[in-house]
């Protein structure tokens, strides 16, 4: 029992801070750069990503264990995962719209952006690569997505402050955001001492 807790803690720090999904693996870069202008939209996007990635990594792990391994067709994992994830995101969207309109109001607009997001597929594939079980896959998905939330909220906070700065003309817009992200990546490199 204690071992499991220890493993989970290591997984939590490892996947949310040390190998941060955006800042060290470059997955989910599009929403990270695209939807980080304001803190509240960044929180919404982060919430949607947590929601989708946690569910998707659970579903992918179940399908991998009970379908792909069972029938010995694991080489089809890329095709199966991307289809399942893309269908799942749309299903989640329709479900939320109909039954949980409050949550849909908060997350709905971000869901289509995540349909073919590399972070979702990337985490499902990483879980298989590291041969996590179903429980650990869900945990790994959740913690990785929390890492995304942390990164995008920090970036949005910095960008809000930066609006008043005098940035050189050529660096206005995306270049200065990329430099900010680079500096954040340097800061996150510091977490590698934690493990």
């Amino acid at each position: 029992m204690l071992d499991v807790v220890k493993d989970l803690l290591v997984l939590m720090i490892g996947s949310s801070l040390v190998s941060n999904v955006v800042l060290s693996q470059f997955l989910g870069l599009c929403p990270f750069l695209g939807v980080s202008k304001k803190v509240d939209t960044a929180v919404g996007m982060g919430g949607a990503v947590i929601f989708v990635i946690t569910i998707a990594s659970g579903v992918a792990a179940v399908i991998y264990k009970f379908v792909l391994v069972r029938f010995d067709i694991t080489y089809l994992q890329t095709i199966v995962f991307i289809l399942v994830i893309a269908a799942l995101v749309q299903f989640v969207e329709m479900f939320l719209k109909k039954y949980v309109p409050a949550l849909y109001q908060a997350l709905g607009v971000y869901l289509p952006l995540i349909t073919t997001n590399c972070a979702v597929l990337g985490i499902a594939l990483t879980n298989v690569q590291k041969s996590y079980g179903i429980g650990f896959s869900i945990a790994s998905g959740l913690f990785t997505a929390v890492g995304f939330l942390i990164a995008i909220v920090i970036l949005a906070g910095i960008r809000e402050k930066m609006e008043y700065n005098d940035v050189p003309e050529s660096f206005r817009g995306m270049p200065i955001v990329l430099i900010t992200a680079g500096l954040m990546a340097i800061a996150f490199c510091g977490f590698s001492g934690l493990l």
Partner: protein
Amino acid sequence: MSEGNSEARQGSMEVFFNGLVKENPTFVLALGMCPTLAVTTSAVNGLGMGLTTTAVLVLSNAIISLLRHIIPNRVRIPAFIVIVASFVTMVQLLLEGFIPSLYSALGLYIPLIVVNCIILGRAESFASKNPVIPSIFDGLGMGLGFTVALTAIGAVRELLGAGELFGIPIINNVLGMFTSVEYVPISIFVLAPGAFFVLAALTALQNRVKRKMQEKGQNADKIQSGCSSDCAGCSDSGCAHRFVDVDGAPGSVADAKANKKEG
């Protein structure tokens, strides 16, 4: 007959150079940023990733173009995804079998070619509307444009971060001819932060070119400002589409927010 042929060939070459130069997916359209950053730690990796993507792009463009009258419009995105994913799986197995060093260097980013904006984007905006031959040339042009861009970014990072180019310690070789000074590599450029810095410099350059073009009164609309507010290439080129069209066309975040405000 021969005239028609030469015309068609000219069209194909035009499409080819369009992808290679005028609409270079990385430098001009700012498409497919994920892999450009992750795998360009060296020029060789960039080249390998670029050529792998080119192979997938050419094959999937050809097949999608062949099937363009057969695939129903409503389920076109899932159909495209299945076709692309099949080719990616084939290419992945071939790499694992024949070029294991590249396979282990690129790792996770090979299956992630499936979600690369360039491939679905070209399928949606070119291959599903054009005959086979132009589609193949479009794939080839776009793919090679992507390869050139990846190799260039990889070369810059390798040169600054390790002092090497394609594995040859080129800076020290040159310096050794004149002085006894040794180049100390800025190893941050091979690590994750360096990728952001190189891309930042690149998009700043792009901004500058665009500004100069506008000052001269030239049309610079084609140049996307490096993954702009709405995730430039992505939302326009098929990546942000819903899996199956249910009720009307999907909108970008901006559209959706506007609707939300109105509603």
